[in-house]
């Protein structure tokens, strides 16, 4: 029971973690991307599409190689998600469109595209097999129990998320690229005046951030629910929670690892405590959202200088503005 609960919490947390890191990278470049929910959706369909291509090319599906499955899902998710992110990037960086509105449009578009393709154009017949292979690709996934299972028994994506979070933290704090990126988010005009190529940085940050967020969706479908496809609105909801998490984790990817798992636990609580009435379940389903609100309030009440969003967040930059 506890093991199942923790496993699920970490899994849901991983979905959120990908989204959260992606959004954090984007926000560090001064762009508030409300399109992340939509981008997580398109990442899902991209990953699924490439997995289905691979599975359909096989004669005996049970022989599918986990490495190729992982690679194709990673590639597909990153490609689709960053392409969607590219629309956002072109519109907000080059065309200096309002970031909020563009983001919402991306979410509407991404959600629609995903539903459309998943429903009619992605062959989902072999997904359950593929899902099982992806989930059990690492040595401890089968047979282990207890603490070993909780720590080492996950699929590849769970560890990928942790690694990405740690690398991102390192880049932010210890490298020149991180320094330049943070400078852009804090004060774009200054970074520009210091010769940082802000357009390049912003594009790269948004594309990579979107790509990473895309992993969240594909992990959810391919690993956590083992290939069963429901509708995209679940993933969209994860996307919004991920954006809220960015505020909660103070724009720090290493803190977001813990934060995501905590949120994951809250989210999953409703489903694990199964022996309560239907209406009780509905109430528990509200819990993650209520908690998010509480977290938002608490963070806004402790108003510290180091814990503020990047100062230039949400503002379009035009060098010749006076």
């Amino acid at each position: 029971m506890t093991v199942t609960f923790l496993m699920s919490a970490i899994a849901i947390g991983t979905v959120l973690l990908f989204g959260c890191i992606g959004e954090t990278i984007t926000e560090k470049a001064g762009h508030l991307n409300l399109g992340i929910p939509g981008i997580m959706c398109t990442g899902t369909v991209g990953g699924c599409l490439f997995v289905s291509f691979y599975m359909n090319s096989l004669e005996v599906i049970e022989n599918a190689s986990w490495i190729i499955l992982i690679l194709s899902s990673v590639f597909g998710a990153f490609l689709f998600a960053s392409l969607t992110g590219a629309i956002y990037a072109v519109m907000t960086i080059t065309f200096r469109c309002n970031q909020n509105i563009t983001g919402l449009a991306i979410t509407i578009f991404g959600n629609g595209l995903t539903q459309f393709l998943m429903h009619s154009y992605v062959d989902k017949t072999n997904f359950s097999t593929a899902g099982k292979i992806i989930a059990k690709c690492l040595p401890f996934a089968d047979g282990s129990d207890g603490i070993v299972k909780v720590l080492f028994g996950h699929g590849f994506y769970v560890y990928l998320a942790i690694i990405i979070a740690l690398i991102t933290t390192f880049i932010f704090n210890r490298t020149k690229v991180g320094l330049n990126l943070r400078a852009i988010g804090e004060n774009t005009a200054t970074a520009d005046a210091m010769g940082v190529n802000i357009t390049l940085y912003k594009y790269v940050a948004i594309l990579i951030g979107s790509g990473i967020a895309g992993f969240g969706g594909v992990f959810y479908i391919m690993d956590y629910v083992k290939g069963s496809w429901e509708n995209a609105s679940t993933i969209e909801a994860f996307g919004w929670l991920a954006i809220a998490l960015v505020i909660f984790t103070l724009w720090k990817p290493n803190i977001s690892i813990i934060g995501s798992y905590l949120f994951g636990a809250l989210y999953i609580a409703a489903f694990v405590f199964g022996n309560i009435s239907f209406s009780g379940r509905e109430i528990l389903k509200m819990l993650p959202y209520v908690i998010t609100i509480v977290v938002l309030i608490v963070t806004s009440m402790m108003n510290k200088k180091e814990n503020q969003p990047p100062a230039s967040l949400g503002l379009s930059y035009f060098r010749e503005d006076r």
Partner: protein
Amino acid sequence: MNKTVILQLKNITKKFGTKVIANNNVSLDVYKGEILSILGENGCGKTTLMNMVAGIYYPDSGKILINGEEVIIRSPRDAFEHKIGMIHQHFKLIDIFSAAQNVALGVEGEKFNLKEVNNRIKEMAKKYGFNINLDKKIYEMSVSEKQTVEILKVLYRGADILILDEPTAVLTPQEIRSLFKVLSAMRDDGKSIIIITHKLNEVMEISDRVTVLRKGDHIATVNTSETSEKELTEMMVGEKIDLNINRTEPKNSKLRLSVSNLTVKNPDGYNVVDNVSFEAFGGEILGIAGIAGSGQKELLEAIAGLNNYENGKLIYYHPKKNKPVSFFHKTYKRVMELANENAFIDEKGNDIDFTKLTKKEIKELVNSEKIIFKEDEVIDLKDKTPREIRELGIRLSFVPEDRLGMGLVGNMDIVDNMMLRSYRKGKSVFLDRKRPQDLADRIIEELKVNTPDSHTAVRKLSGGNVQKVLVGREIAAAPAILMTAYPVRGLDINSSYTIYNLLNEQKQKGVSVIFVGEDLDVLMALSDRILVLSGGKVSGIVDARTTTKDEIGLLMVQSKENGVTE
């Protein structure tokens, strides 16, 4: 002197939109190892011109040559490649980064190693005589420390041409002197330094040559040794003007405002205004001097009711004895409150029994000026909001530093801005736009505001016109106290003098004017007394007619144990 031309500008033109011509066909040479001043009024295009050299703007036409070769500078990065560095008036620093991180920002082509960076900066600092703590965060720094970081940043990139935009605007006289020493050392080291300024005395003191711009045109470039302040002024303004401020002696000054032991904390819990006490009198101009960020803003905002202060007392004296009450400032409700406090008498000096009168009768009596104050009004301003202050009938006008971000709403037209302070008048749920319209027309005419019409968004006006609209509105409220923060910042000479004259006019009308300024020459010429703030404390109150710049400069940096109140 070594006369190698290092930087040449040829026929540079830059327009903003279709109407504003910032630079018109400007040509200019800069020599190696010289200090060149670019002199001109605010808005004459001197910063724009240099921004094109620094890669912030791109010229519409014209050429830039470095060492005789034409170059294209499309971005600040290109400028750095050509060894050009600019120190902007509004510092381009990342607040939450340390000094070293700011210097390292954006530097290309070397391994990232803060230790290495630190050593190199220290070497440079030693060479030119800077003193700086490299691990300090920018937001903890004083203005002059920030400027040092800016200069180091440019030097670190190996700049041979340094452009400084109004570098002395926020420094004390002593800091200016040490900055000039550093600049001279750099010149002797073979660097070319361009200083953008509008201050004549500094031009004469530091530069080898001076270029004068006026309304986007290049007027002349002359050797400093062969010119005079007077000649430069005429070139700058284009006409002979009288640069004297007509200061009258204050007469029958009455106490208007007494501030005692006022303390204001900022959100971090730090005392930004620290135990400040002073008195302001009607019919005088009280100047407030201090390094930027010494608590000037917070002090004025506390008086205006915008800040909650920790402790201290603000007492407002309204010299109303034997004068009639009017509905211009007092609401009916307030009149009745005062009546209950037995504050009024009639023309013959007898008490009035308000209980016997109907509302209509009271209104008639007030309008016919037959209700007279028995004594001066004394009002405690503690914990009063701006709205309550106005409802008490206190005539307190405030021209804040941030004109478009606080005093006015940039996206609203002049008429709507006129009613910012007064829109609440009357019981109707709808706005009355007629009176603001009249006021707007009057201000446009009397203060010669240059605008297409009264329905133009304020942000589209030039700095001087924005300020005329704001000051005009605040004066129209017939204030008893008029507080102004940096009212001529960014204004051309003519607009500045319009403002000085308006302030003097108000003073002669018996208004108590509080003037926060940064230019010590102006403060000394305009004020009657000058209060000097240092680190939120009053470090002295001096007589503006007898003090010296050095005395004020010293007070600006030192903090005396107990606030001196004359």
